[in-house]
C-alpha cells in the first residue's frame, strides 16, 4: 500500500481538521435539537437580487467575465464603498471580484506572506486565518483579546506582538465569533502603532454592514493606512447571499496587480450569475441591508438581555450576529458545557474552543434565527441554567 504521508504535502498534513465536526455530527443525529450554531443569515436573498441573476441566465450571460470581474460590478463596488464607508478605490485597478470573502483572504495572504514571516492575528477569530497563514508559509502570532476589553485589539497588545519578522496584521472586525467591533478611536490607535513601520494590514470587513453601535470605520480610512491595507469584503452577510459565493478585495494597485495573478490562474473569475446579482444588490439593495440590520439588532438586544437574566454573563456585542457569553463559571470546559446542554436540553451552541484554545470559557450563540426560534432555545437554556445553580 502506498504511504501517502510520504507523498502529500507536509504543510497540508500538519493542518488540524476542524474540531467542531464531531459536535456537529452529534447535532445532525438529534432531530429534536434546537440549533443556535449557524454562521449565516436566516434571510433568503431579496427577490429583486435573485431575479437579476435569473434574468442574466435568460439573456444568455453564461460566459466567463474578465478576471477581475465585470467592469460594471467593480464600478458599483467602488461607488458603494464611497457611499457607505467613505473609501475610494479605482474600479479598474484596485478591485478584484472573488469567490466569497474567503478567497479574498486567501489571495491577500498568498500574495503577501513569505516563509518565515510572522502574521499577527487577534483571536478568537474565524477558523480560516491560521491554516491559510500556514499554507502561505507564515507563522501565526496570536494575540488573545480580552473580554474586559470587549475583545478589541489594543495598541499595547499589538506593540508587544510586533517583531522584526512581522509582515502583516489581520484585523477581523466586526468579529466572528465574539461580535466585537473596532470603532474610529480603536482603529486610530492601531494606526498609530503601525505608522512608520512596513507592516501591512489585512482588514476582513465581511460583517461591516452589521455594526450596531454606529457606522463601521475601516482602518484604510486612517492617514497612512490605505497604502498598506488589503480589505476583504463581500455580499454574504450584508445581502444574505452566502450561497452565491461572492466577495472582493480592495487594495492599492501595486498589491491588486499581484493578487490578480493568483486569482487568474487558480480561479479564472467569480461566477457570472452571482456577479449580475451583485450589481443589482449594490444598485438597489441599501434598503434591504437596513431592514435586515434592524432585525438583527432587535434580536441582539433581546438575546443579550435574556442570557443575562438567565445568569450567563455576556459582554455586549456590537457587530456581526453572534453573542459570546462567558460560560467559564460552572466548573466545566466549554466543550463539556455545550455537550451537556445538547444532551440534556437539546440546544446546540458552539463551544468557544471551536475557534481555538483562546475560546475556552466561552460559547458562540448565533442570532441569525427568528425570535420564535430563539425563544424556544432560550427557554431550554433557562431550564439548564436552573439545574446548574
Amino acid at each position, binding site marked *: 500500500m502506498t504511504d501517502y504521508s510520504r507523498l502529500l504535502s507536509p504543510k497540508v498534513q500538519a493542518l488540524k481538521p476542524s474540531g467542531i465536526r464531531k459536535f456537529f455530527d452529534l*447535532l445532525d443525529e438529534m432531530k429534536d435539537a434546537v440549533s443556535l450554531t449557524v*454562521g*449565516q443569515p436566516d434571510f433568503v436573498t431579496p427577490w429583486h437580487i435573485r431575479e437579476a441573476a435569473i434574468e442574466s441566465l435568460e439573456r444568455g450571460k453564461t460566459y466567463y467575465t474578465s478576471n477581475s470581474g465585470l467592469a460594471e460590478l467593480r464600478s458599483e463596488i467602488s461607488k458603494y464603498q464611497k457611499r457607505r464607508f467613505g473609501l475610494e478605490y479605482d474600479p479598474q485597478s484596485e478591485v478584484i471580484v472573488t469567490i466569497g470573502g474567503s478567497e479574498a483572504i486567501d489571495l491577500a495572504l498568498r500574495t503577501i506572506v513569505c516563509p518565515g514571516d510572522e502574521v499577527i492575528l487577534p483571536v478568537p477569530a474565524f477558523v480560516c486565518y491560521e491554516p491559510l497563514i500556514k499554507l502561505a508559509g507564515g507563522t501565526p502570532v496570536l494575540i488573545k483579546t480580552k473580554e474586559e476589553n470587549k475583545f478589541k485589539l489594543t495598541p499595547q497588545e499589538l506593540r508587544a506582538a510586533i517583531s522584526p519578522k512581522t509582515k502583516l496584521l489581520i484585523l477581523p472586525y466586526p468579529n466572528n465569533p465574539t461580535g466585537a467591533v473596532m470603532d474610529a478611536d480603536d482603529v486610530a490607535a492601531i494606526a498609530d502603532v503601525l505608522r512608520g513601520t512596513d507592516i501591512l494590514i489585512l482588514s476582513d470587513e465581511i460583517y461591516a454592514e452589521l455594526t450596531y453601535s454606529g457606522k463601521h470605520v475601516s482602518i484604510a480610512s486612517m492617514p497612512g493606512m490605505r497604502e498598506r491595507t488589503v480589505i476583504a469584503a463581500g455580499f454574504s452577510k450584508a445581502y444574505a447571499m452566502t450561497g452565491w459565493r461572492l466577495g472582493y478585495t480592495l487594495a492599492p494597485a501595486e498589491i491588486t496587480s499581484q493578487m490578480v495573478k493568483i486569482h487568474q490562474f487558480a480561479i479564472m473569475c467569480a461566477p457570472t450569475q452571482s456577479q449580475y446579482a451583485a450589481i443589482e444588490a449594490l444598485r438597489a439593495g441599501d434598503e434591504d441591508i437596513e431592514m435586515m440590520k434592524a432585525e438583527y439588532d*432587535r434580536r441582539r*438586544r*433581546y438575546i443579550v438581555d*435574556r442570557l443575562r437574566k438567565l445568569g450567563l454573563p455576556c459582554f455586549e456585542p456590537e457587530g456581526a450576529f453572534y453573542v459570546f457569553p462567558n460560560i467559564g463559571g460552572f466548573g466545566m470546559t466549554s466543550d463539556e458545557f455545550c455537550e451537556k446542554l445538547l444532551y440534556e436540553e437539546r440546544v446546540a451552541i458552539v463551544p468557544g474552543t*471551536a475557534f481555538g484554545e483562546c475560546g475556552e470559557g466561552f460559547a458562540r450563540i448565533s442570532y441569525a434565527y427568528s425570535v*420564535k426560534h430563539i425563544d424556544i432555545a432560550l427557554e431550554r437554556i433557562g431550564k439548564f441554567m436552573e439545574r446548574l445553580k
Partner: protein
Amino acid sequence: MDTILKLLEENGQLTAEQIAVMLGKTEEEVKAAIKQYEDTGVIIGYTTLIDWDKTDREYVSAIIELKVTPQRDKGFDRIAEKIYNYPEVTSVSLVSGGFDLLVTIEGKTLKDVAYFVANKLAPMEDVISTATHFVLKKYKDKGIVYGAPEVDERGNIL
C-alpha cells in the same frame, strides 16, 4: 414609533416587555404607545392566521366583485356598511377599476355562499351586478406563505 406597529403586524404575540428590550425602550413606554394606538384606532384588533384547509372544519371562501350605485351624500359608505354587517362577510373594500366593492365571505359549503350571494347580496337595492370567485387554494395571506412549514436548510458551517 411605527416600528412597534411593524413588529406587531408581523407577530401579534410579542409582549410589551419583549418589544421594549428589542427597541431599547422601557416596558412602560411601549405599553403606553400600544395603548394609544388602540385608543385611537390605529391598532384595531389582533387575530390569528389559520389555514382552515389543514383542519376538518367545513369551509369555503369566496371573493365577490360588486358593482353598486353610490348614494347621494353617502357615496359608497352606506351600502358598504349594509354589507359588512353580515357576519358571513369577512372583508369589504372600495376599489378602483371595473367594479366598486370587493367583498370576501366565508361559509360552510359552496351552497351556503351561493345562497348568500343570490338571496342577500344580489337583491340589495343599489347592487347592479355581482361576480363570485370561489377561492380554490390560498398561497399567501398577510405576508405569510401557506402550506410551507419552514425548514432550515442551512447546514452546520461555522
